[in-house]
């Protein structure tokens, strides 16, 4: 689950906060065209980063196994619920 490490909630929140700031600046009519286009590009990149993080985890359903080796990583196995 190494991909989980990269989905820091800080970085999502951070990217979203930056995106909100970029949008606010872009909506300010006093910003020049050149800067507006730079802001737009930056905003697109930030939005993409946010979306990537929203999808950064592999879909899976597992269970934690009772026995973990001494000092080792917790062991997991696929889990399929019984039909009820």
């Amino acid at each position, binding site marked *: *689950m190494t991909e989980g490490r990269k989905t820091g909630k800080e970085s999502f929140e951070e990217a979203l906060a930056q995106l909100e700031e970029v*949008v606010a600046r*872009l909506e300010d009519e006093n910003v020049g065209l050149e800067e*507006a286009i730079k802001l737009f590009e930056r905003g697109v990149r930030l939005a993409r980063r946010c979306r990537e993080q929203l999808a950064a985890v592999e*879909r899976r*359903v597992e269970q934690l196994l009772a026995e973990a080796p001494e000092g080792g990583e917790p062991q997991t196995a696929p889990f399929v619920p019984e039909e009820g």
Partner: protein
Amino acid sequence: MSAQIFGVGELIRQVNAALAGAFSGVWVRGELSGVKTASSGHRYFQIKDAEGTLSCAMWAARADRLRFKLTDGLAVLLYGSLEVYPQRGSLQLIVAEVRPEGIGELQLAFEQLKAKLQGEGLFAAERKRPMPALPLRVGIVTSPAGAAVRDVLKVLSRWERLSVLLAPVRVQGRGAEGEIAQALGRLGRSGLVDVILLVRGGGSLEDLWAFNEEMVARAIAASPVPVISGVGHEVDVSIADFVADIRAATPTHAAELVVAQLERQERRVAEQSLRLRTALERRLERLRLRVEVLAGARGLSRFPVRLRELRERLTRLAALAPLLRRVVTARHRRLDGLVSRLYRWPVRFGAPRRRELVTARLSVAAERLRALVQRRALVLAGAERTLAALSPMAVLQRGYSITWNEGCEVPLRSPSETAAGSRIRTRLAGGEIRSLVLGSGGVQGSLFGTQGTGDRGQREGNGDD
């Protein structure tokens, strides 16, 4: 009657034998006082009412099995056997069973633990952690066979990419609380989950009892990861609910809170993306309007050929400038989160073909939208640069000039508007030249048409007044 003489110990033995016959299994009603726990774990206390007081002892093995605590003032029914304690000669009740009066024992235990943990501040709002920003890795502590786990997985499957890690436990029966507490600790420390759902389907107060155990409450409080409780039905309240960071009414509700958070975050991103695009489009639209206003202005309409040229140039510019291409052609797997709401997955997490079709169609739609935005952006960005070129001064900079008959404010459009011998003024970018006309041909004048030119000159003359 001759008096029988006993040794002290012998007499007490005789009394105890008599008591064993008459009072070996008695119920007594009263109120507890002076409750003490000896280092051995045995409990010593008195039971009293308005008329009397009786010493009591309850051995640790039995007392430890009580779900509630013996406290002073508690109204109880005691069951046990009376005996005289030989060393002190005092009468005492050896207690086998305690039943609270006027309240169920579970209810009593619940109230007692609740008061205790509340006193420690375990339920305080300041302790509660919020839902994580991105609860994408969800831990579940529950029975692997119950309805709760199916309900939770069904709801969680609504989010396309989410990982679930179940810590299977027994949720009722002796020892269940220990399993639950341990599972909470293992999941929390594993570093594999962002949030933990502690859930169980409905049942009697007895069935749900594990969630009212102090051990579980303390494990929730100690969890390094926020815990969402969803125990029983909506009417059930457990100690776990009070300690949990977030209380959900049911297992389903607990899972819904997780999905709702993810959907909320996705909406926020989508909303900002939309505002981003709208802001840029609005700005480019304003530029376009400025170009049009200038194009329609009187000053520029005097240069119809030049203006046409500039318009063509604007179009060419638009095609050349790759300004926004790399920005807007970035492909995303999803378009503003709309996709995720279009399909619902079954619990088994198959990958239905329908979903892929929908995704593909949306990609095409997204591409079209992007291409549209891109075209408009390019045209308008080119337009801004053209603005400078459209100013009359810039036209003169390129070598064009304006000529008047001396003393006349209307520029010449045709050689026929002047005649040999007339004095004319010519305005160049750098200044004016005054000249004498040697001759004027009528041939070139036909390009514009004398009649039309005259009309226009008149109209403009009127406008100048």
